[in-house]
């Protein structure tokens, strides 16, 4: 009985008695009960609270300094120079002084907890960023205006930039531009030098690592130079191409201090080519070299001078330029948003949990209407 008879027979068309076909698959059917929901809310609230506190303490430890040099100090003159025409040929230098009130990174702490957590932080790394405001790297056509195949060093792409680069694909003479596109063309080309002015009146240039500031994958995979060898120089490899319109130097001469940092694998270029998601952004410029002098512990407090080769025009798009000096913790630079968001969330969840509990105890119908 009950067995399906094979082939013919009176029950031959009887459907299989499998759990799947009869919709009797073993299953877990969870349902929301006060016993599960209410504790979940309290636990969530607690977890968020703890995370929030921990993050807040960590952030408290970090320090960030911004120096807006758009038209500050002597730069006003350069600012005005760049205002009207994008006159790339005329160099303009200016300086801005600023004060670092506390040593980077701070070392004195009030609380033991912080001291404890500070111990596992990287010691003394100070990062220098250039920040741009109101510069839209995230415009669709801007972002598309690049040729990744060209920048990976493919020979045929080098001479035949993608049509997406238009109008920055060929110059007026019909020469292909390398690297092509609006992104590369608008590369940030101020050079920044920071001088430390100790109280003794001397001037010490703050040493920066200008390399190793890009993603590993970008530097090693995404951006490659066209193949060269001992006899075939980089310049020869770029033969037949021209520099982007707004650039002062061709791509193979971007770094005059290190020939290995030229071409598409130039760190500054790579950093610039990683487009920012929002119109206000900062990009890494360099990392403090703590090998010597007063900088072994970090950036000492005191007066500094920032001298700029002022090339990048921001006036046309009402932008601002700034130097950002920051230090990082295990979860990055100074960022108050996350801890505060966690604390607020924790509070809201706690309120919800209390409301839910009240409702459940006072007016809940659960169980009362089983009779209905």
């Amino acid at each position, binding site marked *: 009985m009950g067995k399906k008879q094979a082939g013919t027979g009176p029950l031959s068309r009887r459907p299989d008695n499998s759990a799947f076909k009869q919709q009797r698959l073993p299953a877990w*059917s969870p349902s929301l009960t006060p016993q599960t929901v209410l504790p979940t809310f309290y636990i969530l609230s607690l977890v968020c609270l703890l995370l929030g506190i921990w993050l807040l303490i960590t952030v408290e430890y970090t320090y960030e300094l911004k120096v807006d040099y758009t038209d500050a100090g002597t730069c006003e003159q350069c600012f005005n120079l760049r205002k009207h025409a994008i006159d790339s040929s005329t160099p303009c230098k200016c300086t801005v002084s600023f004060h670092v009130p506390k040593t980077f990174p701070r070392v004195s702490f009030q609380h033991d907890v912080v001291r404890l957590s500070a111990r596992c932080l990287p010691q003394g790394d100070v990062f220098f960023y250039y920040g741009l405001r109101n510069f839209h790297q*995230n415009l*669709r056509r*801007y972002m598309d205006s690049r040729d990744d195949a060209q920048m990976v060093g493919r020979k045929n792409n080098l001479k035949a930039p993608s049509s997406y680069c238009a109008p920055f694909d060929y110059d007026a003479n019909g020469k292909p531009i390398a690297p092509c596109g609006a992104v590369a063309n608008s590369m940030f080309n101020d050079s920044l030098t920071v001088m430390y002015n100790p109280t003794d009146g001397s001037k010490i240039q703050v040493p920066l690592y200008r390399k190793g500031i890009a993603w590993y994958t970008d530097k090693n995979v995404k951006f490659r130079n066209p193949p060269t060898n001992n006899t075939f120089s980089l310049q020869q490899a770029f033969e037949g191409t021209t520099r982007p319109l707004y650039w002062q130097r061709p791509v193979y001469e971007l770094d005059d201090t290190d020939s290995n940092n030229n071409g598409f694998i130039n760190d500054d270029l790579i950093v610039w080519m990683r487009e920012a998601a929002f119109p206000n952004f900062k990009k890494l410029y360099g990392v403090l070299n703590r090998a010597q002098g007063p900088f072994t512990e970090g950036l000492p407090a005191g007066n500094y001078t920032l001298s700029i080769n002022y090339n990048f025009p921001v006036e046309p798009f009402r932008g601002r330029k700034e130097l950002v000096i920051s230090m990082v913790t295990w979860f990055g630079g100074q960022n108050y948003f996350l801890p505060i968001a966690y604390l607020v*969330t924790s509070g809201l*969840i706690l309120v919800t949990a209390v409301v839910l509990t009240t409702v459940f105890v006072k007016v809940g*119908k659960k169980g009362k*209407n089983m009779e209905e």
Partner: protein
Amino acid sequence: MDLDTVIYLAIWDSHRPPEEERRVRANDRDYNEKFQYASNCIMTSKYNIITFLAVNLFEQFQEVANTYFLFLLILQLIPQISSLSWFTTIVPLVLVLSITAVKDATDDYFRHKSDNQVNNRQSQVLIGGILQKEKWMNVRVGDIIKLENNQFVAADLLLLSSSEPHGLCYIETAELDGETNMKVRQSLSVTSELGDPNNLAQFDGEVVCEPPNNKLDRFCGTLYWKDCKYPLSNQNMLLRGCVLRNTESCYGLVIFAGPDTKLMQNSGRTKFKRTSIDRLMNTLVLWIFGFLVCMGVILAIGNAVWEKEVGALFQSFLPWDPPVDNFLFSAFLSFWSYVIILNTVVPISLYVSVEVIRLGHSYFINWDRRMFCSRSNTAAEARTTTLNEELGQVEYIFSDKTGTLTQNIMTFNKCSINGHTYGEVMNILGAQQKRVQALDFSAWNPLAARDFCFYDQSLLDAVMEGEPAVHEFFRVLSLCHTVMSEEKSEGELLYKAQSPDEGALVTAARNFGFVFRSRTPGTVTTQELGKAVTYTLLAILDFNNIRKRMSVIVRNPEGRIRLYCKGADTVLFERLHSCNHELMNVTSDHLNEYAGDGLRTLAVAYRDLSEEQWEEWSEHFRGADKATDCRDDRLAAAYEEIEQDMMLLGATAIEDKLQEGVPETIAILSLANIKIWVLTGDKQETAVNIGYSCKMLTDDMTEIFIVNGHTVQSVREELRKARERMLESTRTRDGGKEAEAQGWGGAPPPSLLESISGEFALIISGHSLAHALEADMEREFLETACACRAVICCRVTPLQKALVVELVKRHKKAVTLAIGDGANDVSMIKTAHIGVGISGQEGIQAVLASDYSFSQFRFLQRLLLVHGRWSYLRMCRFLCYFFYKNFAFTMVHFWFGFFCGFSAQTVYDQYFITLYNIVYTSLPVLAMGIFDQDVPEQRSLEYPKLYEPGQLNLLFNKREFFICIAQGIYTSVVLFFIPYGVLSHATQSNGVPLADYQTFAVTTATALVIVVSVQIALDTGYWTAINHFFIWGSLGTYFTILFAMHSSILFNIFPKQFHFLGSAHNTLGQPVVWLTIALATVICIAPVLAFRFLKLDLKPQLSDTVRHTQLVLQKKRKPGGRAGRGVGGSRRSGYAFAHQEGFGELITSGKNMRLSSLALATFASRHSSSWIDTLRRKKHANSPGAQNTPPTGENSTTSPQAPPLSTSSSAAGEAEQQSNEPVLAHSPDEIALSAIRCTVREVGECSTATVQVNIHLKTSSSTNYMQIHHTCKSTCTSIVCYSTLDRALIL
């Protein structure tokens, strides 16, 4: 035909104009060709191989959504606009189109197959004087074809001649109008003389008749032949779909063929059915389009402003594209770009996912073992896959009667003779008088029919003892009828009755020793208790609808003249001799009792006539018979004259056997708030009887209105009265609640309707319905009918069935379901939102036209309450989630627009956009849409109220939609702004800023996938292994694909396409990113969780409660409207006459005497497959021991005695095997309980149940008492059951 028409016809060559009249000349194809009548080929398919692709694509692009996506695709090819790669649209679009195309092709293939099967049936056509085999499709108008016995009629034919005398032939029109009794058709006498093929080949008559129409019961035409005119009527027509019976062969002239036949004209248009969810979905999609355009406009305006204020200044870095010369044009392009980006709010995969889910549900229906009928070896079948969720919203069921509710088997069940009732096996005190085996008649009566069952020994004893009243009673039954007999060999009698109930009566008489053996026009020969007696048949006073009785006047061998009469009690009792008063009262009580059981009753009487009386009357009668004017009236008067002063003998009760489980199903369905209307071609009395026996009508009902008027005024009046009565009754019942009573006129509150004033029933006949369905009265009719608990429409034509359904559909905005088994139900099945065909019967038209088919009416409860409910629930949950996830996904772009200069930059990687809907999030929601269950299936049958949310459309409506959308938008806000807030300042731990676009894209996408996965996990109420696999698998797939897409391998091959190189590693390695994702998830989900909890806590749905208390067996179940039968039954006539008048005349005239006078043996052998055999087969199938349903006491007691098991393995399985009744038992109690149900259902009475309960109660706790009690109540109609139960409980 006037000249104009001729010209008209001549001009219109290719397209047929509407015919005004039809001219057909026999045997003249050339002549008939001119008119371009439709051929007999039937085409229901839509495509052929060559046109398939073009036609199907054309059809598919008529879908707004598909055209829209095509439009998007074209937009994406414009580089200035294209914000996404073309493949983000084309991949899903091609997928959708091809899946639909495959489905359409499969459907059409089966249509081709069934068309071919019908079109290739063979028929014999007379061509050039020779009979040739032709396929049906090649039969033309004007051909003469030959039909043989038991063949289907191939087209609408004019009967020319027949092998039977007088050009008679018999047809069964079950396929056409559902009436199973045979009908007689007669050819014109001039043509019937033609006889053989040679003469017919010379026949060149011309028929001029009405154009094709759908009226089954009338035909109007003239035959012109040899300069003579002969009027033609429906009596001369054989319609396609009929089956020739009891007629060796006949010839007919094809008048209407193929699509012009009345059958096809009646089948209505094939309409593409859409569910209400479909319609809602289309509306919503339109709204979403509107929303999309709004978003596009907002963003375009933003773009205009931005380009003017900022972009113009930014031109040195990024000049406008060549065609763009100002910000307005840029904004215009930006609008289209955003239309492309935001198009994912109308997900293309929506439609395909919906189809997949419905397909899954259809398979579950096909696979359901509990909808499998082992008797006919048919499983349920979902023939269309697009309507499943509508099964969960049905409010009105329109049911056919014959073959759907009933089996169309009549059995002689009880009788009352001389004030004594027989057939009731238990006496009132409920003594342990056990059900005995069916009486064995064959021992003493060699002529007894073997498949006749009767259980009451006392009746047999009475016959043996020779009680004169009993003898006379059966003598009436054996003499007073129009049955024809046929004796293959000695003692093997076959009765051919025009109506099955007459057959049942004669068979009963036969088994009790009064065997009707044969008849001639003037005699009836019977065998009374072994002794052959021949009565002289003096007159048959035939039956008709008004008389509601028939009589015969016979002279017995002794020469005494007697009138025997049987008829409706109401009619008969008026004509009894006054000395019968006391007997009449007793019999009347019995009749009420029988009628209360839903039995069809007839009263039986006789009258002794003296020779003088007879002479006088027969003189009178002959005068009336010969009268030319008002013959019918004068005959009726003559009959009336003699049918007086009769002596009552008793009454018979015939059971019109219901399909299994019909009353239970109807009870459960009405508990689920589904209204059931019976639409039948049968007579009013029969229909009402069935209404009672299947518990649609009860004696508890306040009032049953019968609308039977023949004129517009009278129908209107009757309807108005009915409404007034209802209002009145409502007022009187709850006098104080005046407010409610007033509110009832306009939109009566449903509670009022159901509880108080709902206990009304409306019975309306076909001719009244014709008036009631007219435009000015339909609202009135509908209002009245909908206020009633039960509605029965009788004598309705197939088209009227469809009209009624259409009416409700149009005005009630409710989902309708039509269920039927015959071709006469096709139009109704096609009209209703959902059509259900009963399969396993002879005809398959209903099944072919239906959306679902199964073989038993009772499966309907499972189809609706389990499958329908689940489908609806799943579809709603699916849609809610689907809209939610797409809004959450898409609206992020909107927020990002404000930061990227409205430049239509996407937030996500384009591959993510392509794959999000079809890979990352499709399977978990599909699994939920296919497998989710809120409560187990048993519970939905136990709590029919769970069905209500579907009817009220609570789970997915515009409000729910907006909630989903709001939730989606909220999620998108969180998903954009939390990462924005965090990442715009954050750096990696090595100092590299995280604010680059690619990191942001990866973070947001990951957060999105995680949030929607958590959401689906919350929504999934039934986690099978498949759900687990899909949910975890989707997450896994997301990360796998993410890392693969961002790998250096792909980048090295296609650097332009896969420029997200390394983003996954760099981003997902950062703790801050994970903290962001976690925060976003918590913020998105916590409010949802809180709201759900509040809802559950404050306003729990019934399903929540049921789910919560799933393990607690509900102890108290309200019996609903299924109270036991009242003691005093209402007085009504439940008389049993299913046939039409006219047979008596045929018999006396001897026209149909051929059967008895010609060689019987040859005839019998030809008729081996006649309907009587079918009947016998069915009876065999039902009878104990014949197959697998032994309802005897000893067998059915085995199940409760089986060892208690916690699962439904062996014991329950046994029960299932025995009764074909689904048993799902988790405890010995339930096993026992189900055993009771099965047994009761099989046996139809309660004595066995009594035994069961006694056994059962020993093992079960008393908590289940109520449930058993309830089961008993619902299945048994006897009071004995209660008392036994009560006693058992006391023990």
